[in-house]
């Protein structure tokens, strides 16, 4: 146990717009936690900052007791903090298997795959995410749901300690959402800390025991989903958007 990720006073400005404003939170090892907020709240920006894709204007990020502010994305990944993208990003002209192999070829992934070999390890991940029968196809022909799973498979290939999932359910049918649910739960049961965003609470309601709600770059509240859903400011933030459960 103990704190695995500690974010303090994180601030990011784009020109005049403060996308993330004095944002602080802590995540315990093994926790399963959600981050919600309406469109443009700054969730993706928070992930970009934590994973090193963007440099914060102020604030610090500590991962596993180490200051990772300003490290490059691949360095952070190799420490065990891995993120997925809201708009799936696969390697279009490589087979699905190779897509995962790339992650297994990172220093951290390599260490994990040492015993069984890269190909074997990547295939194993593919069967976990349910894409093994499509291993030799290029991702461009996969349906969106499969791409989401591939995205998680790619992240899993690096053997993460904590996984940042950026809206893994967006644009999916109910069944596909169920698949991903199950997949994420399995990862969580294996001890991976999961930090997941969504812009409606309904998606995360049955999944996570704790939710951080944010609006205009700030934390509104932090707690169990029921409480968050009924929080006055959260309701306000979502007002005119069809409510929290839309």
């Amino acid at each position, binding site marked *: 146990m103990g704190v695995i990720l500690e974010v303090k006073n994180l601030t990011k400005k784009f020109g005049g717009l403060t996308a993330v404003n004095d944002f602080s939170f802590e995540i315990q090892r093994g926790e399963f936690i959600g981050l919600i907020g309406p469109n443009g709240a700054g969730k993706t920006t928070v992930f970009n900052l934590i*994973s090193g*894709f963007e440099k914060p204007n102020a604030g610090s990020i500590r991962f596993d007791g180490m200051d990772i502010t300003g490290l*490059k*994305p*691949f360095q952070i*990944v*190799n420490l065990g903090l*891995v*993120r*997925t*993208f809201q*708009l799936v*990003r*696969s*390697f*279009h*002209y*490589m*087979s699905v298997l*190779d*897509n995962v*192999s*790339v*992650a297994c*070829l*990172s*220093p*951290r*992934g390599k260490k994990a795959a040492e015993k069984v070999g*890269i190909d074997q390890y990547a295939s194993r991940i593919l069967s976990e995410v349910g894409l093994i029968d499509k291993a*030799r*196809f*290029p991702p*461009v*022909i996969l349906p969106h749901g499969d791409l989401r799973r591939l995205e998680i498979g*790619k*992240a899993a*290939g*690096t053997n993460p300690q904590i996984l940042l999932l950026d809206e893994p359910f967006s644009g999916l049918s109910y069944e596909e959402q169920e698949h991903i649910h199950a997949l994420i739960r399995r990862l969580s049961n294996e001890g991976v800390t999961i930090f997941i965003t969504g812009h409606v609470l309904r998606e995360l309601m049955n999944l996570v025991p704790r939710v951080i709600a944010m609006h205009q770059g700030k934390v509104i509240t932090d707690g169990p989903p029921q409480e968050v859903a009924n929080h006055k400011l959260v309701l306000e933030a979502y007002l005119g958007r069809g409510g929290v459960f839309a």
Partner: protein
Amino acid sequence: MPKKIRRKLSDAVSGSKNFFLGIPRATRNLYKEIPHQVKSFKEWIFTFRGSLTILCIIGTILIPLITMDDYITTILISFLIFSIFAASWDLLAGFTGQTSFGHSVFFGVGAYVAAAFVKMAGLPWFFSMIIGAVVAVLVGLIVGIPCLRLKGPYLALGTMAFSLILFNLFMSGELKDILGSTEGISGLPAMSEDLIITFLYILIIMIISFVILIIIIKSNIGTIFKAIRDDESAADASGINTTKYKLIAFMISGFFAGIAGSLFSLNSRAVNPSVFLALYSFYAIVMVALGGLATISGSVLGAFVYWVILNELFKPLGMWGTVFLFFPTLISAIILVIMIRFAEQGILKPALEHLREFYDFLLGR
């Protein structure tokens, strides 16, 4: 929203501009399953590709031996040298997505260094060639490090700027004492008394180079290269140190381009600053575009078409043939435009498909 605009917007959103050479339009082959890799050499020989390769090699060896024609041998030698050069560009641009327009830098450095070592130090050609290639690798580092931060068209122009800096430097005669001025270095000893032997040396070097290049792209490092090409930040998010691997790609590519350059000067027994011109980078691009991007072996076909077929077949065409002989660049510019505009896949893949049907037919399948 009008349909056209919506399409534009979705293009903008999906970031299709990042793709290389507009490949997205040539998705035909992508809908096919990517075949398993063949592991052993013995197995490979009996595959379609394997037997075809062996046939081609035998054919290439036999032509000069049968005709005993120096002119044909010379043309074949150019073809071999430039196929290595084109393949080295393909590794960098087609596989790693680093579209360099300054590939002539490596070619030229290899050519100059090899020539200098043969001429001044009297080293045997083979060692000079290796030294030329190694120096090209170092130059690959020097060019690569600053250019790594550049993407797409910036990289293209940045590398091109490098090649022109070198051209001007060598033209200016400020390096006169070591590397000759505008006229460059000439009067190198021949690689061997007999042109056929030279040809065989170069053929062997070319085959070895291709084997190494193909092994590289099929290995883990090749997988990483392709990942960087397809989506650099996704590769970053997969924990890959993209800077390091791009630099490796620059170095490997520089090495083989350096080999090609060294062979070029050793074979023509002279070298002058024009090897740094954008024209030589252009040659590589044309040949790769002809053969097919990201294929490595396509470079052989591209170089063959460029040096042998275009050179030879245009001759009987009379006037137009003459135009090609005198202005090959003119024609190849047109070819390049046509290829990129209408046949981005190059001719290797379609050609192989047709040949394969024929092959299956011969075997009665």
